[in-house]
């Protein structure tokens, strides 16, 4: 059961000649089996926090612990391998490779995971497509899918290596109401299945699904709102 702890996290970056403080002394913990929502205005630092938890960026100061192991000082290879095994990303714009078919997009993370043989990879893709109810879209290109279907493919890709943590950056930002609901229900189901799901969202609907809600304001994280 994964446990993530962010300790005294500070993040500064340069925007033109100005120094922006995106995170200011953030302290927070995330546990398996729960869905966390981080809400806040644009530019409040919520995506910065998410991508730092996902080891896609480096903190200016502070530490991130995965199961009590400090992972913020790992090198690129170690961070990459941790991302591969433990973290699944879902993006607002889906970020599917437009020139790869649905099944090929889902296969992509499995190529660097030694635990999958060629046969197991195929089996896993089939199972994920069935689970997300897009089994008949395997050989389609992303441009042939609706927004909701594309996001489900992106979720399948995020789940390909069976990660413990799912990080979703505005997963319903480009979707209509009906698809929003479908995606949030999938994320809820994943958390009930034991995964730690962290969602950054503007969408007020998230409150219905989240176990804990945090608000980011000017780089500072509020206490649990609910």
């Amino acid at each position: 059961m994964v446990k993530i702890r962010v300790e005294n996290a500070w993040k500064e970056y340069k925007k033109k000649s100005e120094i922006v403080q995106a995170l200011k002394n953030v302290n927070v913990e995330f546990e398996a089996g729960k869905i966390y929502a981080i809400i806040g205005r644009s530019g409040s630092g919520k995506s910065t926090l998410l991508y730092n938890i996902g080891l896609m960026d480096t903190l200016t100061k502070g530490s991130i612990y995965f199961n009590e192991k400090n992972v913020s000082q790992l090198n690129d290879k170690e961070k990459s391998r941790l991302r591969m095994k433990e973290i699944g990303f879902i993006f607002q714009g889906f970020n599917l490779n437009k020139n790869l078919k649905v099944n090929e997009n889902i296969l992509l993370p499995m190529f660097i995971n030694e635990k999958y043989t060629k046969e197991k990879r195929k089996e896993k893709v089939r199972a994920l497509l069935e689970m997300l109810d897009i089994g008949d879209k395997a050989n389609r290109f992303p441009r042939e899918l609706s927004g909701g279907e594309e996001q489900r493919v992106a979720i399948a890709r995020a789940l390909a290596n069976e990660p413990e943590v799912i990080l979703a950056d505005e997963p319903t930002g480009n979707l209509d109401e009906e698809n929003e609901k479908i995606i949030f229900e999938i994320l809820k189901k994943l958390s009930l299945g034991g995964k730690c799901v962290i969602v950054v969202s503007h969408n007020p609907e998230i409150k219905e699904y989240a176990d804990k809600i945090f608000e980011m304001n000017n780089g500072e994280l509020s206490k649990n709102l609910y």
Partner: protein
Amino acid sequence: MYQKSIQAFFRKKTTYLHLAIIIIALAISIITFCIKDYIGNWIELQMEGKDYLKTMVLNAMNEEKQKQIDEAAKEIEKIKYVEEVRKKYLNNISEEHYMYLVTVDNWKHIDYVKKQVDDMGYILGGGKDAFEIQINSAQYIQKFASFVNLFLNILTTIILLLFSINLLKDEKADNMVLKAIGYTNGEIWKIMLVKIIIFVIIAYILSQMIALLLAPIIDTLLFNYGIENYKDYMLNNWNIKPFAYVSLIIFTLGIILYLQINKIKYISDRT
């Protein structure tokens, strides 16, 4: 690891557009390089094979000047590249009439020696003058080919650089996803580099084929200037220099890509 990314790369229409542009530019570059190289060899062959072209004549118009050219001959002997200065009597006119035959070590130095003698106030006749017209037109074609070759080399390099920058921009989101799903910077770099290497090798092979297919036409054009056997040269000589040039480009692009890919990280506009 590479298969799917390369497959996606070759499913893009823009890849083929870039490929067509690079093939044309590389083909012209290879053809002009070969013309330049072949004419250079051809001129050398023409001149090397005729030793008498290396010998020039210094003579006096009248007896009064005879003494002056005796002095000049001594000076000419000291000029760099002059191999021999030999006195030759013109028996059929008179024992008193003679000239000097100035031989240089290599036909390439004829112009230099002529210039030195000219500065002394004398004129050396003969040498490669007889071949001048033919050689001049060959040299003109060679210079033109050199210019086009240089221009095309610069153009090809710029196109390849723009292509790589474009590729990086185009695949920024894809590379970010690769990083998010666990690929290291090094693995992403390898994927990009393999794509570019395959791209450039395909472009190089196809442009070489175009250069070979066009050889008979160029052969006919050069034949009009008295330059023969270009086609045989193209078929019998696998010129390594264009390949070395392409390899150098790939190497440079590899370094640029490496530096760029190490910068990949999530940069949020929305935070």
